[in-house]
């Protein structure tokens, strides 16, 4: 099993390396030289300034050299300087990663919990409840998450004025934000973001429940009069965990995508809004850093998911060689 973990980690690293290469090359392919763009007409009037700035960013060296220089810096946590604001990108990213992880974590937890409840209800209830609960996930997945975000803002923030409509804090709070205020700001974006993972989890849950309910031993147990709840807890639920873990990667991916949109709706100061602005401003160093960090988070979570899978299913110790 140790070998398995080592090999998965190794392949993940390779994958990340490949991703960083793609990313690096992609950004360098951009038409329009960022330095001239940023300096604007000051640069047009002053070619010497342009040359010096290009040299200071190392943009005049051959691509492979640039790549390795960039990579060696990245590995030590140095992402360079923002082409737009001049700030250290590491500082920008470290400021932004907290809110993103917070929102992502809250939405994952909420999504998991909500999804399980939803799935169980859809699995065991009957009649029209059952139909509605089972039909809803598909619907949730196609309704745009940003629309849901806007709806939530409209309902709770604009109409009912219960909760703040944007941001992670109010400006005067600065560093001394109270936990209550943080939670108040976190509620609406979490609600908006958790619906997608919740519906994915719900679908898996009731599908698993259906399957398990068909099993001989469950029907036997029922026939013997063993209470449904005990059957559910002892047999159905544990089986639900596996599919959820297996599709964990998909869940995280969907979460990340929707997180960027939700961050935009709520002006949440996370990596998503950072990257959107950076793309529009052609701030390549920031775009690179953002994409890389998110990719790392994603790969890490896939590794964790794999680990959980191994731990959860004792039958699988040696992966099938294909």
């Amino acid at each position, binding site marked *: 099993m140790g070998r398995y973990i080592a090999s998965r980690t190794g392949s993940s690293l390779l994958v990340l390396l490949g991703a960083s290469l793609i990313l690096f090359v992609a*950004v360098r392919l951009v038409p329009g030289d960022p330095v001239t763009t940023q300096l604007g007409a000051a640069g047009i009037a002053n070619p010497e300034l342009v040359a010096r700035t290009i040299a200071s960013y190392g943009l005049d060296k051959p691509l492979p050299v640039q790549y390795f220089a960039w990579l060696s810096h990245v590995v030590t946590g140095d992402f360079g300087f923002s082409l737009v604001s001049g700030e250290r990108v590491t500082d920008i990213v470290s400021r932004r990663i907290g809110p993103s992880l917070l929102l992502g974590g809250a939405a994952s937890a909420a999504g998991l919990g909500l999804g399980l409840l939803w799935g169980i209800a859809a699995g065991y209830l009957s009649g029209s409840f059952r139909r509605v609960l089972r039909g809803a996930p598909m619907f949730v997945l*196609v309704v745009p998450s940003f*629309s849901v975000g*806007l709806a939530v803002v*409209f309902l709770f923030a604009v109409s009912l004025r219960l909760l703040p409509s944007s941001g992670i804090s109010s400006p005067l709070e600065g560093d001394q934000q109270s936990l209550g205020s943080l939670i108040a700001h976190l509620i609406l974006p979490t609600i908006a973001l958790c619906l997608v993972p919740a519906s994915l989890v719900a679908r898996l849950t009731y599908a698993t429940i259906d399957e398990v309910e068909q099993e001989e031993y469950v029907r036997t147990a029922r026939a013997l009069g063993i209470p449904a709840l005990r059957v559910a807890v002892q047999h159905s639920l544990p089986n639900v965990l596996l599919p959820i873990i297996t599709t964990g990667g998909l869940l995280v991916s969907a979460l990340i995508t929707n997180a960027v*949109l939700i961050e935009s709706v709520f002006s949440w100061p996370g990596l*998503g809004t950072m990257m959107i602005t950076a793309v529009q401003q052609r701030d390549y160093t920031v*775009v690179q850093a953002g994409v890389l960090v998110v990719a790392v988070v994603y790969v890490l979570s896939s590794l964790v998911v794999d680990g959980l899978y191994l731990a959860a299913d004792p039958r699988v110790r040696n992966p099938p060689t294909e």
Partner: protein
Amino acid sequence: MSAITATRVRPARAVAVNFATLHWRSFTALGVIALFVVLWLARDMITIYGPSSVRPSRALLPIGSAGSPLGTDGFGRDLFSRLLAGVPFSLLFGAVPAFVGMAVGAAIGLVAGFAGGKVDRAIVAILDVLLTFPFILLAIIVSAVLGASLQNAMIAVTLSILPKNARLIRSQTLSLKHREFITASELAGAGPVAVIVRHLLPNVLPTALIVASTDVGLMITLTAGLSFIGLGVQPPDVDWGVLVADGARYITSAPNLAFVPSIVIALVSTSFVVLADNERRILGARQ
């Protein structure tokens, strides 16, 4: 292995009834989509004001106003007219990436699954790398590199569903590879291309089509998201995602501007998904 309901033999009379009941969802979905297409075709006849017509005196009219049944935006532009102008973009955004993404993905999957060995491992490695980028990150990279535009958004979206499709078709190919009819044709001297095209392809085609059809709905929503954050269609071209973004700015004074296009996106996406989903269940195709 697959989650299909077992097919049971039914008496002939019941079949006719079941056709309508089985397909009513599909008819409704088709109806919705067709409605939008027809409205778009007839747009010059049913709208008074064009989608780009700025009329300062008609700014922010509410739903139900004369001449603008769905209201107007901050520049006095008719929302209904703009919704219709977005129809071709949004539908294109859904269909093209879904089908092109499937065509290319399936090709890759077929090759990888059939070839096996080093080729397969190399392809899988590349797919894995692509998969480290959740959809939106790919879109961001593509936009950063190529600029934000309709075509580039479609490229980004296509790239992001490629790996999933490739993997799906690959695993199907793998399980089909060792079936007797393949081995038989190989023994008969058929070259790899012939095997793929004449034997494997027809067998993966149903899955491919169904998955692609289901994806259309999802693609519409995803690309609306791209437009929402400004990485898709650029003004003055209009698609529904852009309309939601524009409307979001008026959420306090004119919520219809954000919610009407949102409802339209949801409606059309759901219709495509329902259509594909329903047909899948009816045809009993493997997923």
